[in-house]
């Protein structure tokens, strides 16, 4: 059985709602592909572009760990936990939705596009008390290295969530190499190229390609372009 799975960017699901242009790595909403349901506990990886002043009206979630990573622009978040905040590029938003949360997400600017990754993980605990967390990350600290954004550790670098998952991002100069070692035995790794191209253990990945590895060991990562940016999700293979 193969221990890798390649999701080329142009094979993702696509929905253009006018105000929202979304690419789905995994089955979501009206995009249904039974071969693309999840990678372990990673269930949703949406690449969303939201028009100025537009957004998602209030809607519910439960029993999911929902991570938003703004790549460009900013989102205004409101929820029934009492939070009204703006999340911009360089910040990470995590919602542990547990027993249930209603929230809205709007492009914070009327005249600028917002681009963000919306990622959902199955939680390792059901029915937790909902929580919202937002953390500012120093983007300069990910230059030519993998910077931790999220972990299961409440006292760890970045923010935390209810899953044995670790998120790292790095922005690399062309030709720079690094390695990544899985954080927990039994976890897999899902890599998503935000921009540029990379070689991962010899597999070339381009912008918005995804690559899952079920027995990762030590990964050898090399940037093939200037300012190539990569998201690494270290994730339990079974939810």
């Amino acid at each position, binding site marked *: 059985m193969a221990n890798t799975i390649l999701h080329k960017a142009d094979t993702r699901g696509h929905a253009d709602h006018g105000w929202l242009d979304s690419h789905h790595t995994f089955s979501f*909403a009206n995009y249904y592909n*039974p071969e693309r349901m999840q990678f372990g506990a990673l269930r949703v990886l949406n690449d969303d572009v939201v028009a100025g002043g537009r957004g998602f009206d209030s809607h519910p979630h439960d*029993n999911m760990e929902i991570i938003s990573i703004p790549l460009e622009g900013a989102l205004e978040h409101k929820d029934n936990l009492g939070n009204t905040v703006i999340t911009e590029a360089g910040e990470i938003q995590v919602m542990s*939705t547990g027993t249930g949360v209603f929230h809205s997400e709007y492009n914070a600017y009327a005249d600028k596009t917002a681009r963000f990754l919306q990622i*959902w993980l199955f939680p390792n605990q*059901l029915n937790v008390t909902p929580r919202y967390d937002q953390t500012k990350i120093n983007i300069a600290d990910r230059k030519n290295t993998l910077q931790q954004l999220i972990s299961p550790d409440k006292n760890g670098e970045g923010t935390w969530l209810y899953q044995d998952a670790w998120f790292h991002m790095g922005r690399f100069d062309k030709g720079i190499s690094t390695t990544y070692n899985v954080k927990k035995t039994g976890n897999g790794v899902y890599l998503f190229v935000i921009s540029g191209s990379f070689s991962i253990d010899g597999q070339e990945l381009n912008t918005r390609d995804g690559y899952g590895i079920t027995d990762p060991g030590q990964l050898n990562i090399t940037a093939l372009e200037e300012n190539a940016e990569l998201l690494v999700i270290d994730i339990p293979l079974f939810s």
Partner: protein
Amino acid sequence: MDTQQLHILAIGRNAEIMTVMQRLLNTPENWKGLTVTTNEAALAAFDQESFDIVLLCAGVTPEEEATLTAHFTQRNPDIIVKRHFGGGSGLLKNEILYALEHR
């Protein structure tokens, strides 16, 4: 999916979310959904109506899931009982299609 109507029972403790689920489960032409917030109401509904799928939503504990699943499958060995994640947003249709294809 064929055009036969699909009967879905959803059990969850968050009344506001179940109100949204009620709407979502009755939106597709060939779906008919009923949502309840207690196990007692679920058991009563299951005795009175015929369902194809039961969705266990937020607030239902793993222990309750085991008890309810045993009850439903004893009454109807063909029933699909599935944990629903996400509160209706984004995953509901996928979960149901996948469950039907992999029953």
